[in-house]
């Protein structure tokens, strides 16, 4: 991850029916940097992350992700991002290993990276994804997010349901990601002690 990368978003707006959730939000994140998005419940943190991930189309504003000086369109951007979010679910009829292998084939990578992360997080590979506890599901989300060595991590409540070891290991993974030149946007009520942390407060 040596080439420079950046994410810029300007004046992002999004409403649901009559409720205006995002009213002109702007921010930026550079190589090795992290943007911490804070705010009370309902302030639009998840909505913003969904827009950045390309899962939701904003009503207005611009989102630009650049790698090595070139702007990537939404489809290319999707390949470069890893997402951890509470509503991310996997196939309950498949085992953990089968889930990762499937998504690895879709991402056109080998599942090694994801399996290595799972190993660090001590998640059993042969457990059915439907039989996982909420903490284990969160570990699987991290493994899935890092499967394809993404450049940009979009983390929505990334330590939710974690016990102490889980939280420690995932913080390490995040630090390693940033140290290697990755970018991260994190929506999290808890404080994170990292360098190069920009803050974006969506509170009113």
């Amino acid at each position, binding site marked *: 991850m040596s080439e420079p990368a950046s994410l810029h978003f300007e004046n992002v707006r999004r409403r649901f029916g009559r409720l205006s959730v995002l009213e002109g939000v702007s921010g930026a994140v550079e190589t090795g940097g992290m943007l911490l998005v804070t705010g009370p419940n309902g302030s639009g943190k998840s909505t913003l992350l969904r827009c950045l991930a390309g899962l939701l189309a904003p009503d207005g504003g611009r989102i630009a992700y650049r790698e090595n000086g070139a702007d990537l369109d*939404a489809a290319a951007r999707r390949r470069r*991002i890893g997402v951890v979010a509470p509503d*991310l*679910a996997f*196939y*309950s009829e498949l085992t953990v290993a089968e889930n990762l292998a499937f998504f690895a*084939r*879709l991402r*056109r990578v080998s599942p090694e990276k994801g399996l290595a992360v799972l190993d660090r997080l001590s998640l059993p590979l042969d457990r059915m994804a439907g039989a996982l506890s909420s903490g284990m599901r969160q570990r699987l989300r991290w493994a899935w997010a890092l499967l394809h060595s993404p450049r940009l991590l979009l983390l929505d409540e990334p330590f939710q349901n974690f016990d102490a070891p889980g939280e420690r290991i995932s913080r390490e993974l995040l630090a390693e990601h940033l140290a290697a030149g990755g970018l991260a946007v994190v929506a999290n009520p808890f404080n994170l002690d990292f360098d190069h942390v920009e803050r974006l407060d969506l509170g009113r």
Partner: protein
Amino acid sequence: MSSDSTWAAEARRWAAEAASVFVKEWRCEFRTRYALNTLALFAFTTLVVVSFSLGPLGVMKSQGTSVLPVLLWIILLFSVAAGLPRAFVQEEESQTATALRLAATPSALFCGKLLYGLTLVLALEALVTPAYLVMTSLDVASPGLLAAVLAAGGYGLAVGSTLVASIIAQARSKGTLFSVLSFPVLLPLLVLAVELTRGAVTGDPGGVALPVLLLYDAAVTVAGLMLFPVVWNP
């Protein structure tokens, strides 16, 4: 040329993606048996009802050739409507669609789901058609044409249903909406398929209908490949 080889490599990777979607669908299906059970149960229930209501003496030969092909395709249509949309509705309802949206190439995903739907429909036809012919005592003059109609018509059912399923999966009231949206799309297919099935029963080759059916299949396939990325991603 290097550009040719990268194109070929890209095509291979795309095909591998589509294949992995296909395999995943069937793996999940074998572990739950949901679609197979729904399709089979629905098809056989309808089959029994049809056969029962036609009576123990069956239908007069002259009426049979006009009525029975229609009923066969109605059974197939409604069985498909009962079991196929789940391919996309399930993804949205169990929230696995988010992961799929971020990881999959839309065209490969569409083809993988389409292949799964096609194999379901063909399996359904293989089960239902012989049973139907036996239960209604229908003699088929040209079985070859019947097989061709079932293949081409079955493909049409699969591709149309897969695309419509992807649309309604993101809307409310998915069950009724699927029937409402798919019927106008599948109507030309049904008209052609019934016409050709009638031809297979009477031995009449049916003229231009089979090429037109194949043209319909091709047109909806192209439409699906072009429209699915729009439907799938914002």
